[in-house]
């Protein structure tokens, strides 16, 4: 039976007297899931709850069908976690530290050592693997945190702000690694970030939290696909015949100002068909834009309108 990667059912979490997560219900099955939200939205609390650090006050959360409340150990053996904050033993070498973490995840000693070397080479710290972690730069520490999270070959990788404090080349490197792991098809990734670009570049599904509630869920792949079917045109010439022809293909057309038209392409119509009917009618296509409803637009819209309901 195929279980969703993460499934939340009316999940509420209280820390002290404060209700941090409220009645969350959603289910994710994609390879990469982006978790977005402003500061204090409950992203880290949700991750901590999924890892079994906090107990749900109400409702339930499941990872690969296992309940975080009762099967935390089983879940943790399937999960790799890269925390946001510094988490090291400074006087340990990177390879020893990652070996220790892999052994704690259940790998036999020799295999843990082999995987520690592999994961450090994979993230690009191969040459620095015998150096003490305390001597690492911020970017190297981020990569070492990623290495310890993947050393035991998890089925779900949870990345909490993986590009925090990285310079542009280091950020690009991190994003490339996340994409590579995604494309390997061997793990699911939950990426928590406040950098929309990171999420946009790596994730298929996005959930936006605000004040402890899910305010928006979006399948970015579907959004991108639907955006490709929404065109803005600027035409020059006798356009009546063009509009009729486009409508004849099943497209929806709406006029705008200054010879501008908006078109929603029918399922069987491609942009090439629009070029063709324009050429047949000797109409100049001065501008053709796809709708660019970026993640930023989606996020801002969710922040403005989000009232906690889905």
């Amino acid at each position, binding site marked *: 039976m195929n279980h969703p990667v993460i499934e939340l059912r009316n999940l509420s979490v209280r820390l002290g007297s404060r209700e941090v997560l409220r009645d969350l219900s959603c289910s994710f099955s994609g390879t990469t899931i982006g978790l977005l939200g402003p500061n204090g939205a409950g992203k880290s609390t949700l991750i901590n709850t999924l890892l079994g650090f906090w107990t749900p006050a109400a409702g339930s959360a499941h990872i690969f069908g296992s309940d975080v409340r009762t099967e935390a150990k089983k879940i943790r*053996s399937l999960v790799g976690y890269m925390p946001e904050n510094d988490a090291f033993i400074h006087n340990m070498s990177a390879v020893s530290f990652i070996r220790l973490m892999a052994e704690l995840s259940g790998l036999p000693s020799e295999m843990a050592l082999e995987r520690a070397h592999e994961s450090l080479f994979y993230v690009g710290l191969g040459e620095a693997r015998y150096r003490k972690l305390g001597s690492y730069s911020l970017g190297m520490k981020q990569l070492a945190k990623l290495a310890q999270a993947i050393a035991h070959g998890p089925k779900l990788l949870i990345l909490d702000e993986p590009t925090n404090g990285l310079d542009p080349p280091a950020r690009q490197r991190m994003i490339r690694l996340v994409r590579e792991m995604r494309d390997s098809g061997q793990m699911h990734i939950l990426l928590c970030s406040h950098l929309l670009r990171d999420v946009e570049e790596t994730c298929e599904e996005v959930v936006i939290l605000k004040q402890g509630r899910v305010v928006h869920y979006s399948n970015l792949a579907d959004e991108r696909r639907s955006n490709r079917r929404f065109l803005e045109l600027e035409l020059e010439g006798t356009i009546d015949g063009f509009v009729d022809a486009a409508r004849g293909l099943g497209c929806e057309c709406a006029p705008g100002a200054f010879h501008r038209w908006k078109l929603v392409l029918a399922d069987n119509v491609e942009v090439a068909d629009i070029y063709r009917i324009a050429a047949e009618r000797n109409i100049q296509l001065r501008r053709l834009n796809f709708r660019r409803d970026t993640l930023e637009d989606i996020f801002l819209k969710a922040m403005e309108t989000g009232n906690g309901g889905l």
Partner: protein
Amino acid sequence: MAVYKRTYRGYSGAITPAWSRFLVLYRFSRRTLFRSKIQTVFFALCFFFPLLCLLGIYANAHLSALTFLGQRPGPFLDVNGRFFSVYLDFQAALAFLLTAFIGPGLVSPDLSNGALTLYLCRPLSRTEYVLGKMSVLFITLSWITWLPGLVLFFVQASISGSQWMWDNLWITGAIVLGSLIWITVLSLAALALSAWVRWRIVAGALLLGLFFLGAGFARAINAVLRTHHGYLIDLSQLVSIVWHDLFRDIGDPPLSVTEAWVALLTFAAFCLYLLMRKIRANEVVR
């Protein structure tokens, strides 16, 4: 996968049994334990007194050797409960100093560097983490307390014969149980204090303070209030009372054995409470 390929691959190989994971912590901590030369030398010196006792037991049984050295013939040692009680007193003091060296460095680096999150996001519970760290002290201190104590007992048994061994077999129980009580008290105190202050040096100082200042305050309370109940805060005195009972020492302890046990159990419970409060993957900011 060879490292030169540098592509990600999952893992589907063998997995170690879940119950044995806490021993990983022991193995890794042990490696760092003897990096310090001072600690290594001190650990080696802890075997000096057991060796001396061994020599004493040997010499005691081989009087001809003593005659050769010009000593008066005849046994000069009574190897009995009292002998092993003195042995354990001495080794317990060394165990305390060794704990002050190594105990605070077990937990505080993990807490101060935020590494607990990484330990506990794996299939390792907080209890297993504490057990793993405690096992470092348990095993190290066992090497200098009850293990040499048992060796001494069985050397004496091999010299004196099986009758002596059966008559004094209770001493082995007293050595093992007395040592384990002391090791437990020391381990819990060291781990709880280092989890509380998160600073190795301060935790070490607090551990010394807990025992020495505790003993000082206990005497001050006893003197001012004309009571013996001040000893309830003197951990070494409490353990000593339990040992006297275990080694069947005749004497008049300042507190009853039950009172000593209750005080020790209360202390252990407080340490466990402190550990459970502090050993967390994340702290709640209320």
